[in-house]
């Protein structure tokens, strides 16, 4: 238990948040929009 939470909760929620954050950083680094 970490912060009173079972490991499965930390891994599942933390993992999804990390993956999404990494994907949005990748988008920011690679998107080259122009009007």
């Amino acid at each position, binding site marked *: 238990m970490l*912060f*009173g*939470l*079972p490991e*499965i*909760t930390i891994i*599942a*929620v933390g993992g*999804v*948040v990390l993956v*999404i*954050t990494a994907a*949005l*950083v990748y*988008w*920011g680094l690679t*998107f*080259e*929009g*122009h*009007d």
Partner: protein
Amino acid sequence: MAVDIVSVAIVSIYFLALLGIGFWASKKIKSTEDYLVAGRELGFWVFVLLMIGTVCSGMSLLGVAGLGYKAGWPTIWEQVFVPLSIGICIIFFGVKLHTIAKTSGYITVQDYLAHRYESPTALRSLSAVAGIIVSLIYLVGQYTAISMVLIWLFGIPLWLALVIATLVTMAYTTIGGLYAVAWAALIQSVMLIVGVIVMAPIIIFKAGGFTAVNEFIYSINPNLVMPWNPAGAFAPPYVVSFALLLGLGLACAPHVINNVLAIKDVRYFRWSPLIAFLVYGVVIFLLKFAGFAGLALVKTGVITQRAGVANPTDYVILDALQASLPSVALWGIFAVIVLAAVMSTTDRLMLTIGAMFSWDIYKNVLKKDADDASVLLLSKIVVIISAIGTMIIAINPPEMLAILIWMGIGTMLATFAVPLLAGLYWRGATREGALASMSLGLVAALVFGFLNYFKVNAMGIDFAAIPLHFSAYAFVISLLAMVIVSLLTKKTADKVLDETLTGWYISK
């Protein structure tokens, strides 16, 4: 709670500021384009905070905490996928729609659908009517939240709370259009972000802090700290459909997606998804955790769950705050923060309804030779009618705020997601496919939503206990209709597909 002069003053100043913004914005309105898409000149931060303000609604403050109080950590996916919906909207819809809109002069997302599917009347009318229906459902939920705050703070009757909330929101939206809505959202979102980051931890510490709250709700029921609840609602299949509902359903909602047409520069789309995800993610997580803390405070007898109201769980964060903060003035500030969150969605919804009626139905279907002044006037009249109409419906609030708002989002998902995604990415999607997908998606969402909400047991199916959120079934029906009907009907002309940037790419 007795009426307090400081709280009255704080809320009054907030309302006057909004009216001031509306008055200032009204000076900038010269045309329908100014009114509905702010002259396409929104800057980066106004756009980011407008997106957060549009997505952050009554559910985000009262409903989110209420749901956390009721069902614990299995509902935490809301805190992931609602903030992500802004990025999904920008990346998968916004980049292309903004680019096409610049050259084609779109005012609403219906302009895109009419163009892409070569359906200037049928699909435009259907999508506008569907958009108005789902926006009205969503709007009722917002008014319920506004009135809850005013009742809590001032102890005034529901009808009076609704009238006050309606008049103020209606006034600045009607006179200032999207300029007023966007600049109000800038202020409202900053207040929301700062307010929640300051005040939610106060509730959490009152309940013993992060770890203590988790340990306490674990002691009530171990499933409350799990990422899903195998023993009830929020089992894994439901969680997946919940993610689809929030992530994609909000992203394709007309009042959210229309914002991407109003920015000045497409390069704003580069970092806005990440910034919105992180900033709004922190805010909405703190709110959910304040709901967990509210559960601990109720179970330890610090506060009691309300009796005699239709939606007691949604009041928990208000009562928890009252128990945690010594100053009445701070309650007034928090009330303004809640109002800011709710009103920033309400005003955008009303404006979107005005746009869909005056621009899509009146100007583009009923009276194509209508001049700009009459379209602008009609937009304002429809904003007023939609505000008053939903206020009347909101007099009998639903049992739980979150459920009504999810019904609105679910209907948006089933109605708009497939025609928009297929239109932007699949060159095989046809007009008939879009009409079938949108109409069947809308009808299926309303039917499944009704059966689920009223716990109907028919044809051997208990609709109160279906494993997925009702909108997921309607979404599948919408998807099947699009694929099957499109394969059987004539393809859209290549010229139109090229003009509307249709294909398996986001940007070239």
